[in-house]
């Protein structure tokens, strides 16, 4: 059987993952399993969530040599320190440790991408970003058509929106 991740090496590591009662069988080669920290999440969801979480951190700590410690520039938290206390230091941490957090959150919740509510401000931002993109396309077209009056107007409009978003 080939590794389901890379489809190259022989799958030597087989395990079942149970998250929220859903059983998933995984077949990976050693390299991929290590790379994805998959082995660390091979557990059943026990009754106590707190316990589960502590266990999760412990299992990551077993492998300290492999990870070089990153520090959040905003709050000074290192990933090692996070593993000790189980709490992040600031919003920036989520960006700095994004890769580790992605697999950690997946291990805890079975998912790692938010599906719910979006703050109104963020929603507005997304709409504005999309508007800028379509204006840019229109700008390119008007330059092609040598409609420079229209192009100048579009350029100003794009700059105005970007300024509003704080991009300039």
């Amino acid at each position, binding site marked *: 059987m080939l590794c389901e991740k890379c489809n190259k090496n022989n799958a030597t590591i087989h395990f079942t993952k149970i998250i*929220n009662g859903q059983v998933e069988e995984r077949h990976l080669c050693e390299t991929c399993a290590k790379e994805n920290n998959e082995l660390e999440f091979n557990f059943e*969801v026990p009754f106590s969530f707190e316990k589960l979480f502590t266990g999760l951190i412990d299992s990551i700590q077993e492998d300290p040599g492999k990870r070089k410690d990153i520090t959040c520039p905003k*709050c000074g938290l290192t990933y090692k320190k996070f593993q000790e206390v189980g709490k992040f230091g600031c*919003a920036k941490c989520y960006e700095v440790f994004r890769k580790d957090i992605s697999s950690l959150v997946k291990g805890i919740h079975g*998912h790692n991408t*938010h*599906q719910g*509510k979006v703050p109104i401000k963020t929603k507005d931002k997304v709409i504005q970003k999309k508007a800028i993109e379509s204006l840019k396309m229109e700008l390119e077209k008007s330059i092609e058509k040598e409609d420079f009056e229209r192009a100048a107007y579009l350029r100003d409009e794009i700059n105005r929106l970007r300024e509003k978003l704080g991009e300039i």
Partner: protein
Amino acid sequence: MVKWLEGIGNDEDVVVSTRLRLARNMANYRFPYFMTKDESEALTEEILNGMKDNVYDIPYKFYRIRDLSDIEKNVFVEKHLISPNLAKKADSGSFLIRNDERATIMINEEDHIRIQVLLPGLDFEEGWKISSKIDDFLEGKVEYAYHEQFGYLTSCPTNVGTGLRASVMVHLPCLSMTGHINTIIEGITKIGLTVRGIYGEGTKASGYLFQISNQTTIGESEKEIIKKLNRVVLQIISRERSTRAYMLDKRNHQIEDMIFRSLGILKYGRIISSQEAMNHLSNVKLGCDLGMIDNIDSKDIVNLMIKIQPASLQKTLNKELTYEERDVYRAKLIRENIRSLEG
């Protein structure tokens, strides 16, 4: 009566309350665990300033943990208005309580902001409406920590995403007495929900009261989380009801005896611990909900369950009591209350 209990809720023969809690943080401050005192003061000021413009909602009252006595803050905990964790934050914790006590905004708990909405009976829809509205308002006033992938950012990765912990407090005497509760707990935990006892240690329930909540907070929308939980709760309600009917049918005398013995102890006892009181109050509540006791409102029994907790008890008497004194005074308070409820 505890204010948030007032009014009529859905399925109150089984569901005591519905609670929704949203965890939110601000983008420009370190999270509470790592904050300095100055930072936490500045953050509190910023939230309070923002709340000043909140003229469309019912007014709120502000409290700092450090200004409250041990008894006072624990009364808020026993009434389920603030979390035990917030009560411990003597240096930085504070909270705003809406005058109808149905909404609390906790500041500097594990997260900068925790919005809690508490309603009598089963009502996730209303709970979500109220909490989301408060959330929208605050979002317009302060800069939230939000991430395109992870959603609302929290101190602890167990809350990230929606930041939503939705729960119900349910009274399940018959499922507990028959032992069916264990199968249900097993089933519930398998689908990503959590069950724990209320007031009791760990999962051991006191007064057959349980709290059921969602365990995961990311990957599903708030509406999906609530829908799933609501579906499970409705099933539990119908199983508790059918078990009650079955027991009434097969064990009528035994059930009746159990309920009225409990009522007797509450009416005439002279020393009672909170654990013993909870168990008898639970039986009497069942008697009210089954219509065996028709001169007491079941909700007044729930209210009494809160009044007999240690801090609330001492608050009523306005002094600290030893354990022995508490049990004597508790028995007295219960006797007087039951008598006045019976009219």
